[in-house]
Structure formats: C-alpha cells, structure tokens
C-alpha cells in the first residue's frame, strides 16, 4: 500500500507516465504492425525513434539533471554505432544467436562510449558553461573526422587496420567493417523495434534510479548551487564525471541500436546537426523532464515524415512548426492551459 501511494506522489507521477507511454505506444504499434495497418514509411522510422529517445534521455541527464551543456552527444552515438557494428560483425562468426550478438554489441558500444566519455570529461569538466559546450562540440567533430578515416577489416588472419588510406587487402571470405567515409557496409541488421523499446525501458529505469539516489541528488545539488554543494562536502567534479560517463554510455548503447538497424552507415550521419537535433528534443521536452523528452522526441522525429506530402517545403514547415512549438510551450498562458487540463486534481490537492 505504501508503495502504491509512493507511485502516485508528484515526483513519481512523471516516472509512471513515462513507462506507461512507452508500453502503450509499443502495444499500439505492435497491433498496427500485426494487422498490417502501418505504412512502411513509418515502420522504417520505429528503430530510429527508439534510438533518438534513448539519446535524448541520456542528454537530458547531462543538460537537465547536471546542468551542463553538451554539444557532442552524436560523437558518443558514433562510437557506439561503429563499435557495435564491429563487435556484432565479428561475433556473428562464432555465435549463432542474433539476440546474444546484439546484446553483447550494445554492452560493448556502451562501454566504449563510456571510456571516451571519461577521457574527455577529464579536461572538460574543469571548465564551465559555454566553454564546456564548445569543447564537447569539438569532441563531436574529432570523432566524426576520426571515424571518417578508419579502415578496419577482418579475415582469417585477424583484424586489419589502417588510417587515412585504405591499404587493407583481405583474404577471400574476409569482411570490411569500416571503410573510411563510406562507413560500415553490409552490416547484418539485428536491431528491431522490440529491442529498441526494451532499451528505452532499461534507460528509463537507469535514469530514474540514478536521479533518486544519493549520486543523483548530489548532481542536482551541484547544479542548483555549486558553493553550497561543496560546503556540504560534495566533490563536484566527481559527481559530474559520473553523470557524463553514464550519459555517454547510454548514448553509445543507442548508437549500437541505430548502427545495427541499417546495412550501410556513414560516419557523417553523426555530425553536429545530430547533436543539435537531440538537444532540441531535450529543450522542448523540458530540462530534467524525462516524460516530456520522450514525447518531444517522438513528435519531432516523426514530424518530417508526416510532412512528407509537402515535398520541397517540408523542412521549411518543420522549422516554422518548431519555432511555433517552442514559443507556445514557453508561453505561460498556453502552458498553464495545458497543465491545467492534466493537473486539475493536483491544484486542488496543493498544500498537502
């Protein structure tokens, strides 16, 4: 009973809603898929939407919960995606089960992204605000350029690696995992919608568990007031590193999901634009608001598809709509109207 009560506390309402949303959406879409009522235009978007949801949630951990701006999250996706492609391509030689391959690839992608996250957090988290944002931006560019120049293949003799120029000659039966700017080709597609939804749910659990722990509280405290946080003995750099690495790992896992959803994947997919798009989802969804992030991500990723009928004007209308949505969600009157509809009961129960 106590647990039930807790579930409906103000704070937990948002969490319950997030899980509910994901599960309901999943059931609804699965039903549409089974009955064949979903256009192929949309089915091809399902896994990318899941992927962007995870990255947006991960980025909200950095931007919303810890209050630092990161413009390089596409970099972590990229690391995750290409690690995933390599691991999954390599393991498929030994392991029959695609599911197991995929799961291991996700874990490896997350770990690799976490390692990079940790390495860049060393110089980055000593900086603050705009400076930090600019360094993460540069990091994203570096990763893109690096991956653009990597040639990696595998055959009976083992891995072959070259940088900048492709000098690899594989024996017959060998496979190129990454070929520079062309990226990964011939990847076996092992991602699917169900895996994506499970990953969103796991991400939500990790993020909420983190936010409701002593580490999560410490991060939010450091965001609200740095001096006060230090005065109660919080090591701010340590807590922020923790969030950054966790967020990088989640973004990496999302990258794997994305990378294994396409048979070809170019490194330039994960450029500055992608980082900014994800940031837009986060800002629109609300800083620190995971439920809002899910909604805004789903809407904004699908929007260009819905506007397809507009042909050449598509991105123009998309941009205009984005501006309108941003203004509307920041207008107090409109916002009160929307929250009023959802929270009529809450207003009555205030002051409890």
């Amino acid at each position, binding site marked *: 009973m106590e647990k039930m009560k807790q579930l409906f506390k103000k704070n937990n309402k948002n969490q319950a809603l997030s899980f509910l949303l994901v599960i309901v959406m999943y059931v609804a879409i699965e039903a549409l898929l089974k009955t064949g009522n979903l256009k192929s235009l949309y089915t091809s978007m399902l896994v990318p939407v899941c992927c962007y949801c995870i990255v947006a949630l991960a980025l909200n951990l950095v931007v919303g919960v810890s209050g630092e701006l990161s413009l390089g999250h596409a970099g972590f996706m990229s690391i995750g995606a290409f690690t995933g492609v390599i691991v999954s391509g390599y393991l498929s030689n030994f392991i029959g089960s695609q599911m197991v391959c995929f799961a291991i690839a996700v874990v490896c992608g997350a770990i690799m992204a976490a390692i990079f996250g940790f390495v860049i957090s060393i110089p980055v988290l000593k900086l603050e605000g705009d400076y930090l944002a600019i360094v993460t931006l540069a990091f994203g560019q570096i990763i893109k350029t690096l991956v653009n120049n990597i040639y990696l293949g595998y055959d009976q003799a083992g891995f072959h690696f070259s940088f900048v120029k492709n000098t690899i000659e594989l024996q017959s039966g060998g496979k190129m995992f990454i070929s520079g700017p062309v990226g990964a080709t011939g990847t076996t597609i092992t991602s699917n919608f169900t895996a994506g939804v499970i990953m969103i749910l796991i991400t939500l659990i990790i993020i909420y568990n983190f936010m409701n722990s002593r580490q999560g509280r410490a991060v939010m405290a450091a965001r*609200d007031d740095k001096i006060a946080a230090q005065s109660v003995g919080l090591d701010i750099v340590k807590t922020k590193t923790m969030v950054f690495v966790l967020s990088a790992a989640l973004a990496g896992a999302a990258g794997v999901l994305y990378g294994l959803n396409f048979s070809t994947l170019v490194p330039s997919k994960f450029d500055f634009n992608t980082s900014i798009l994800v940031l837009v989802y986060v800002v629109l969804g609300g800083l620190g608001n995971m439920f809002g992030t899910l909604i805004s991500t789903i809407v904004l990723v699908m929007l260009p598809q819905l506007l397809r009928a507009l042909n050449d004007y598509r991105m123009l209308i998309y941009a205009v709509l984005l501006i309108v949505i941003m203004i509307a969600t920041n207008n107090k009157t409109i916002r009160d109207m929307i929250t009023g509809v959802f929270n009529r009961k809450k207003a009555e129960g205030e002051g409890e």
Partner: protein
Amino acid sequence: MSKEYILKTENLGIDFGGLTAVNNLNLKIEKNQIYGLIGPNGAGKTTVFNLLTKVYEPTRGKVIIDGQSTEKMDLVAVNKLGIARTFQNIRLFKELSVLDNVKVGLHNQKEYSLVSAIFRLPKFGSAEKEIESEAMELLDVLGLKEFADFKAKNLPYGKQRKLEIARALATHPKILLLDEPAAGMNPAETAELLDTVKFIRDHFQIAILLIEHDMKFVMGLCEKITVLNFGEVLAYGDPDDIKNNPEVIAAYLGSDE
C-alpha cells in the same frame, strides 16, 4: 595543557587587491561553545566565514580545525574535517525538495556505490532508509517536518534559513557557522530560533559560531563574542563586557569624528 579548541585562527588575514578585508584575526573557539562574531556592516564578518570554509584562500595566517591546519584544503575537505555553514544570502538547492536538501547533506555520511543505486541492490535500500530517517529527524529538530515535500524555493524566508541549518547539521560537523540566522525573522521566530540553536548545541554537542545583527539574540545566546570593525578585532569578551564597551558602542552608533 591548554584548553582544547575546536577552531582556532592564527593571525588570519586576506587582502582583495590593495584592500585589507580581514587582518590579524585570532579566534579561539572551545568545544560546545556558542560564539558570536559581530560588527557593523562591512566589518568583514562574512569574509571571515568564507576564510574559515575556504571559499576564499587566506592571504596570511592559518585556520586550525580540531587540531588540523586547513592549509591547502578546499571547501570539500574542510567540510569533511568538521566545519559546516549557512549563508547570508541563502544558498539552498532550490529545485530539490526540502527533504532532499537535507539528504544531500548526508551524502558523505551514509554511502553506497553507483552500481547499487542503479541496480537497486539491498545496500541501497538499507542506506536510503537510514538517510530518510535521519533527514526527517533533522527536519523535526528545526520544525520543518511538515514541509518535507515542498520544493526548497517555495519555503518562506525564515524556514529557508532553518533548512540551511538542517542541511549543515546533516554533514555531522564539529563546528557550525551560522551567517545571520535570524535575518528576516519576526521577534517570535527569533525567540524560537534562539531555543533551537541552544538545543542544537546541547543535542549534537557541537560548537556554534554565529554572525548576527540582532543584539538581543547575540547577547542572549553567545558565551564569548568577538567584535570586528574594518577587518580588525575591536573587542573580545563576555556579552556583558561587550555591551558596556565604549569602543563597541561608538563603532555601532558612529563616533563623533
């Protein structure tokens, strides 16, 4: 052997550019003592707090907490040594709940790893339970129990000051620094706060150093008082000595010059 001092400063001083904000300060605070630091506006009282807690690095002299010099330590390290404070311009974790503010104070007292947090291992449950009950206890001491679920920024001003005290106490300090705890409170609240501060000292067995402008509050509470003026010690003694010290009266009311 000399008395045990929980906090001692030796010729402590700081300059900002060419301006000497604090100079030659020698404080000696005993265990379980309530000590007052008073002086006119701009005398350097809050600067002293910032020196003691390492918000500022002293230009001269040193601070010794519980026998240990705080040289080369930062804010975090001196807090771990046993010094906790409140702020003149309230610094709460605004977006967190009242309860969570205190829980943050308990961060280093009851620990568990990130892994047990994310996977909700048994260690998490037991530690969180202890954190919750201790945080509620502290809120109870300061009369904030019923506000536990409020966001800190939505508390009335006086209660925000009390929450800062609760948060500071959560770090299990040996000495607590209160920067104008009664500011913005009405007489009834101030009287209540006076009892609370005494209770805190007796209950937690800690020393308290406070800055305050409300003379009734200071005189009724402090066992020893140091008066600062223009960054230098003007007088030191019992409340009665201070009350009748002509220099102190002149500094507060303004001299004829």
